[in-house]
């Protein structure tokens, strides 16, 4: 697996798209920091961008990479190597190369600005961690969708729909339900449904870390109670990690039975 990962990674970091993705974060972070002059605000803005863009790029690149390399994958399948190693290697190569663009693209401007002299360094680390794990989750899901669909158009469509659902529709439905059932106590429902969507969960974790939950009213207080408690924080980290393992498991199971 490590061998496949290594070569996939080298292939991908040299691609034009990695450079474009890196430059995007790099420029955005520079502009935000030097126009705003406020590291904490820059982190919040970057969070809003990463939470939507990270999953989208993960999904789109995952699908494209899988379908693009499908003929080479056939050559690999004929080598003395387990199927699992091939697909996990390719997937990790992709997730790491995207994460590298993210870490360097954000890291360089923030370090230039003086991140190490500010108190926001832990918040910045949380931002990178969230970006990394979202990339990981969504590129994994893209790999699974591609494995499950021979038809490229269908695979691509499903992947985009999945992203749209998680990033946009989920919140809409969530909000509608809150309005419909406003007569009832909804704290726990709100908590559980936010925790089940990795994008929402990441957003909340960062908001709470930045301590601006007081802006969110009563529900914010409930959330803060939950997440600030040791077990709540642990639970949400575990759920995010579980989200990262679901696609890995799905890829392994799907690859085992598939005909190429």
């Amino acid at each position, binding site marked *: 697996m490590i061998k496949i990962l290594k070569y996939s990674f080298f292939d991908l970091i040299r691609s034009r798209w990695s450079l474009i993705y890196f430059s995007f974060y790099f420029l955005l972070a520079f502009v935000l920091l030097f126009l705003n002059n406020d590291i904490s605000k820059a982190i919040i803005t970057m969070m809003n961008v990463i939470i939507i863009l990270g999953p989208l790029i993960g999904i789109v690149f995952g699908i494209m990479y899988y379908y*693009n390399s499908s003929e080479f994958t056939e050559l690999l399948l*004929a080598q003395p190597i387990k199927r699992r190693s091939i697909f996990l290697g390719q997937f990790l190569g992709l997730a790491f190369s995207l994460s590298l663009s993210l870490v360097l693209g954000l890291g360089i401007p923030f370090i230039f600005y003086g991140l190490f002299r500010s108190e926001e360094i832990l918040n910045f680390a949380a931002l990178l961690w969230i970006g990394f794990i979202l990339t990981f989750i969504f590129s994994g899901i893209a790999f699974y969708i591609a494995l499950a669909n021979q038809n490229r158009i269908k695979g691509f469509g499903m992947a985009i729909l999945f992203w749209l659902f998680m990033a946009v529709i989920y919140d809409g439905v969530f909000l509608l339900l809150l309005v419909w059932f406003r007569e009832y106590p909804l704290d726990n429902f709100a908590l559980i449904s936010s925790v089940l969507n990795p994008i929402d969960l990441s957003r909340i974790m960062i908001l709470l870390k930045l301590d601006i939950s007081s802006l969110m009213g009563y529900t914010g207080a409930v959330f803060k109670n939950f997440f600030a408690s040791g077990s709540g924080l642990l639970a949400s980290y575990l759920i995010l990690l579980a989200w990262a393992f679901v696609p890995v498991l799905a890829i392994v199971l799907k690859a085992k039975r598939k*005909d190429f």
Partner: protein
Amino acid sequence: MIKIERLNKKFGKLEVLKDLSLEIRKGSINAILGPNGSGKTTLIKCLLGMVIPDNGSIKINGSEVKDQWKYRDEIDYMPQIANFPSNLKVKEIISMLKDIRNREARDAELIEYFELTPYLNKQLSYLSGGTKQKVNIVLAFMFDNPLLILDEPTNGLDPVALIKLKELIAKEIKLGKTILFTTHIIRLVEELAEDIVFLLEGKIYYQGPVSGLIDKHKELDLEHTIATIFSKHVKEEVS
């Protein structure tokens, strides 16, 4: 060398291989022929473990291949379409496969033979189709394994490279390797193959020496024989 017994494979409702049994002797040169969709590629992919048969058994050198992967270390495979990660260099793709197999290879010799040295530091996306196919050949032949499986090996080669490939295969034959190849080019069959495995609709229509098939149909040569079988088969399907 290879023993296949009662192999079945369906893709949805489409039955691609129907109760197919086949034995390939060690050291024999076999051309797998058949019209499009007769199951040639599926058969090869079953041997390599890329397609999982519904039932039946495949044994290579006496051991069952199902759910196994180490047996592939004894097989060289050349796929039909050569497409490689576009940002890797030629020498990197070669070292990648050497890394995976974790053993020495005769890549230097083959690179020289196919005159690929000027391309070693080029990225694969910049290569022409024919050059990619040459890289494909190097990757397939460099491990010097006793069993060679070639899927349409002559695709996209220029005449010079084609002659070189044929000479290379002829050398491998002399070394006593077992070779399986598919092709639509009858001359290649006549020049190289000893035996023919003729597939029709997922079953073996004929297996045996090239001359046997011609005699069976009382035709002049292999080309006419195959044309007769193809057209007869189409008529049956229409009626």
